[in-house]
């Protein structure tokens, strides 16, 4: 499949070869505008796939809630460390 040559910075993550990962990261747009654009892009993709449909299931919201639970657990981990049952694992 001979598509036109796409410059490295514009390739999607799944199309980047493992060795090119570093240079691909370097080419990405880390300006505030670029970060905002990528956040907006990700939001739009999630929204249009799971929520903006005629018959959306519980998955769309449930995944967000599970993600929130996991994230808050990770932020609290330093606190929770003291509740461990054993000292050595």
């Amino acid at each position, binding site marked *: 499949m001979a598509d036109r040559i796409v410059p490295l910075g514009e390739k999607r993550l799944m199309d980047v070869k493992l060795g090119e990962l570093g240079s691909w990261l370097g080419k990405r747009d880390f300006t505030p505008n670029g970060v905002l654009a990528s956040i907006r892009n990700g939001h739009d993709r999630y929204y249009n796939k799971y929520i903006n449909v*005629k018959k959306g299931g519980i*998955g769309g919201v*449930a995944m967000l809630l599970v993600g929130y639970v996991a994230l808050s657990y990770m932020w609290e981990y330093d606190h929770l460390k003291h509740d461990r049952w054993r000292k050595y694992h």
Partner: protein
Amino acid sequence: LGAGLVQLAHLHTSPNSQAPVPALPEKGGKTRHGIIPEELFQILYPKTGVTGPYVLGAGLLTYILSKEIYIINHETFAAACMGTVIIYGVRKFGPDVAAFADKLNEEKVQKAQEVKDLAMTSLAQAIQDEKKEQWRAEGRQMLFDAKRNNVAMLLETNRRERVHMVTNDVKKRLDYQIALQTLHRRMEQEHMVNWVEKNVVTSITPQQEKASIAKCITDLKVLAKVQQAKTTA
């Protein structure tokens, strides 16, 4: 002038595209057990078959429990209770809530559709009326012709009335002159006749009168004699 032409080219066009809005997809992305996207199972299927992601999940669970990355404390029990209740509630009331939400959505869409249909019909009606008005405007020529005819007729009537008035007036004046002349002649005639009579009457002297009366008596006697002779004969 070039800028004006460009503006002209944009008349009656809008920047919005005319293509119909694409419909929403029917179903969202699939998720297994509500929280794990189906894509994970599809990615692992060629290498590990159907049980692969489950084995992955079990292994991960064992790992985080044994290394106490996930710590079992009082909150675990709370989470377990809440999870049970939530899952039971979703399983039992899920379809009903989904049907209700679908009904709400449908009503919204229906209302919007009604508004759109109403707008379409009213606009189509407006187009019809506009075309009718254009057709009527074409007929205005005939209206103007009729009005022009009317005005011409009025003017003609007016002119003829005035002509009549003029002839009547002229005739009246001429009749007056004629009447005046006949009056003059009649008066002259009568005056002359009266004058002749008066002169004749005054010229009859009394002697002439006696003589004429005597002549008349003798004539009457002769006539009487003749008459008597006629009746006896």
